[in-house]
């Protein structure tokens, strides 16, 4: 994959997992986890913004004005997950693959790309800590181990096609911008 495509895939992943994880705001298992999980979700969207800004003049347009088929996120992040075991399993799997990708980008010949990757990595260190802590705690919980098995195939899923759940996400995510095309916010 060329670096630009890699960066777009990264930004789309971060935007969509941030969006999905933010669905837990207000309903996470404990208040402390609610605050932490929402904060991590917001960080991911911040990473997406940093990379979109690198790729386009208008980061918002790149983030929200594309058709569903133009996104390049992994099917793993698109899934709408309604239980905590699956949500933590996804975070855990996501952080594992994200780490390899960020480490590659940190070695980029482009100093701007390498710099952004290093910045992202400094925050991801805490996301990994959070994911690993939960994975360790739920290690012997069958609902968690089953969720890991179920979700693992999505990690290397096809980025060129969208899962059925993406349509609804896209519709909601872009509805405000579509309601006022060309508006200055």
């Amino acid at each position, binding site marked *: 994959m060329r670096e630009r495509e890699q960066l777009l895939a990264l930004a789309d992943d971060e935007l969509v997992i941030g969006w999905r994880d933010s669905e837990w705001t207000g309903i996470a298992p*404990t*208040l*402390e*986890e609610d*605050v*932490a999980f929402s*904060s*991590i979700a917001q960080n991911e969207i911040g990473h997406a913004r940093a990379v979109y800004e690198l790729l386009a003049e208008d980061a918002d347009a790149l983030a929200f004005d594309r058709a569903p088929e133009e996104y390049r996120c992994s099917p793993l992040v698109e899934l709408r997950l309604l239980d905590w075991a699956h949500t933590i399993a996804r975070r855990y799997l996501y952080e594992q693959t994200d780490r390899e990708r960020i480490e590659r980008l940190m070695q980029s010949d482009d100093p701007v790309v390498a710099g952004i990757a290093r910045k992202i990595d400094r925050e991801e260190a*805490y996301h990994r*800590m*959070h994911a690993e*802590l939960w994975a360790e*705690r739920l290690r012997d919980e069958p609902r968690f181990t089953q969720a890991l098995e179920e979700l693992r195939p999505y990690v290397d899923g096809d980025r060129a096609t969208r899962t059925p759940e993406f349509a609804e996400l896209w519709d909601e995510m872009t509805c405000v911008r579509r309601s006022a095309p060309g508006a200055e916010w």
Partner: protein
Amino acid sequence: MPIFEVFRQEKKGQAFQHAGSVDAPDAEFAETWAREQYGRRGESEALWLVPREAVHEVIDFPDEFDLKYRRVDGYSLKARLSVARERAAARTR
């Protein structure tokens, strides 16, 4: 779930001040959650997490006798000063 008291240092060298608490099953979760609640906006240089049961609380301070002379503010001098002033004025008259 155990409660961890969170103390926050705003700048290097400053005293730690109580910031609040987190309910967490162990110190690792307490750290992760406290980082997000008390450190994500750059508002902390460092945090101390203390299990509440490790805190030795002291709340009982009997003051059965008048021990005001031991306090930094001491006895109120206002009344005595005015008496002394009157006495001094009477003497010069």
